[in-house]
């Protein structure tokens, strides 16, 4: 059908699309996002991609330096550790343990925290005030210390570590969600929806959520960089993943004794942790920048 009137339609992208438009304009942050996606891919596909097994030892090939060294072997690109396990494969498997699990941990904490946070934002009175004070106390204890306490209760082990970190992260999400929902509920567009007769739950899901999701995602990036460091730190202290598992922190701890004869067993896992945390922080930085730009414009 022919259109006789052609007019330029004004587009109003959704908050998330607006965010993305600002977000992609900074190159360094897109590099961060690229690295972040790369790590997620690695975390998912590492069992297929890794050239060697991450746990089987091969004493004949023990302590090979990386391939660019004269004594290196090209089929072990980043060298081997004291049991002849390929460093590259271990690092790749470690991506799914340290990075992948931190992602899952943050996701679980996010769902639980946002749920409790938005519920508590809708309640008033003593219950709410008590929660507020309680959160203040919990938030003033650093996350790693709290995680160590919980691991002490549950006992060492990888799954206990993960639950501990989930429990540590939940209060942060409750705090952010609660504040954000309260702030939005005071605005006039919510009042308009209320006057239209929308129920509280409907307002929460359809009006408020799209506007606060960016803050929650922002908190998620903070939480993830903390989670990576916490998982690795607990692994390093021997409270997290058991030694044979190629968790980056545990790998560092087992390289500790070799660190003069085979420094690559210490350098490489540390660099991997650094890389993962910087990638996460860059994405978070970009998000904060984009949110600020959108608020200002």
């Amino acid at each position, binding site marked *: 059908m022919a259109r006789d009137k052609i007019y330029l339609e004004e587009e109003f992208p959704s908050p998330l699309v607006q965010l993305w438009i600002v977000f992609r304009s900074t190159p360094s942050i897109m590099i961060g996002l690229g690295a972040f996606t790369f790590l997620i891919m690695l975390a998912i596909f590492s069992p297929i991609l890794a050239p060697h097994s991450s746990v089987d030892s091969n004493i004949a090939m023990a302590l090979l330096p990386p391939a660019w060294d004269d004594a290196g072997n090209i089929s072990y690109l980043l060298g081997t550790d004291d049991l002849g396990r390929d460093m590259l494969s271990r690092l790749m498997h470690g991506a799914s343990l340290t990075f992948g699990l931190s992602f899952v941990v943050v996701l679980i904490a996010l769902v639980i925290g946002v749920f409790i946070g938005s519920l508590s934002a809708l309640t008033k009175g003593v219950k709410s005030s008590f929660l507020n004070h309680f959160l203040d106390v919990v938030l003033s204890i650093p996350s790693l210390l709290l995680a160590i306490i919980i691991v002490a209760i549950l006992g060492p082990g990888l799954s206990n570590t993960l639950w501990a970190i989930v429990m540590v992260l939940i209060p942060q999400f409750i705090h952010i969600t609660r504040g954000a929902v309260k702030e939005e509920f005071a605005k006039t567009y919510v009042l308009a929806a209320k006057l239209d007769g929308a129920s509280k739950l409907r307002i929460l899901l359809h009006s408020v959520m799209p506007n606060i999701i960016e803050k929650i995602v922002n908190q998620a990036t903070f939480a993830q960089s903390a989670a990576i460091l916490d998982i690795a730190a607990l692994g390093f202290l021997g409270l997290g993943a058991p030694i044979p598992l190629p968790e980056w922190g545990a790998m560092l701890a087992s390289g500790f004794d070799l660190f*003069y004869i085979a420094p690559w067993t210490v350098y490489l896992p540390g660099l991997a*942790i650094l890389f993962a945390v910087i990638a996460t922080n860059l994405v978070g930085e970009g998000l904060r920048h984009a949110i600020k730009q959108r608020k200002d414009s």
Partner: protein
Amino acid sequence: MLIFTLRRLNLFFFTMFLLTLLSFSLSFLFPGDQLVNLTGALNASDSVRDSLAAIYQQDSNIVVQYFAYLSQIFSGNLGTAMTTKSDIFNEILRLLPATIELSLFAFFLATIVGIPIGFIAAINHKKPIDNAILAVAMVGYSIPVFWLGLLAILTFSIQLGWLPSGGQISLLYEIEPRTGFMFYDILVGSSDYKWDALQNAFAHIILPAAVIAIAPATIFIRLARTAMLTVLETSYIKATRAKGLSFNQIIFRHAVRNSLIKVIQHIGLQFANLVTLAMITEVIFNWPGIGRWLIESIYQRDYTSIQGGLLVLSSFIFVVHIITDYIYALLNPLARGAKYGSR
């Protein structure tokens, strides 16, 4: 100010209540017998057990038990360690000063390095220096502290051989422990090699303190930068510019003072973070502090020690928290009238 103090006290009691409650409930949450977890009396004879049960009022209801526990804490009884059978309170008294010394030193280092750099970044906003400082700060707070510690030992202790790799002071020096604060003990003690010992202790503390200080320093850079940027945009700075004051006058007389207040507000929160970093660093540098002791008691499943250590460590963090809040309120009259006690 009185109301502010009362609010602080209120928050303090509430938090102390929660912390002791948490510590008390830990004895139920830890595996094993509750009374044993509480007192550390492992494999005790029946008579000892009975007397302990009487002290902790095990027959009464849970509230009375909690208050019995509380009165034991206030009389300085945290039980005995399950593994070494030593009194936990004395143990902590011996170890805590080393941790306080290390973390205060690191805190001082982070402040004097971080804040000026942050100011420099803000003054050069959107110039290459600013971007470079931001990039370094990003790397700084992404670095895992245990890795940094290992690298520091490898470079400065093993390859260059400049600094010792662990411990608080060389064993050659015999320092009589009075307070546990090494520097104070050396200065007070009477020995012929006072200055040598002082230098040696300084060489021991500098590496771990620098490792701990890196992450908080980068956070201070960001805090100071944001604070300075907001101050530089205010109208009173514009007014000083209009009056024709020189750059140095504006920055040092007006901007720095006002932005420092904003930085101090957030400094207390960072201290908690710093103490956690100190715990890990103590393990690496073999520092005889409470962090290493606590982590070792987790390995040994010494629940009584964990309980006491956590209580003392978190109260320490909280006390520092309150002190910085107080300093902030003293410096900034606007904060005293705050609507809500904790901010």
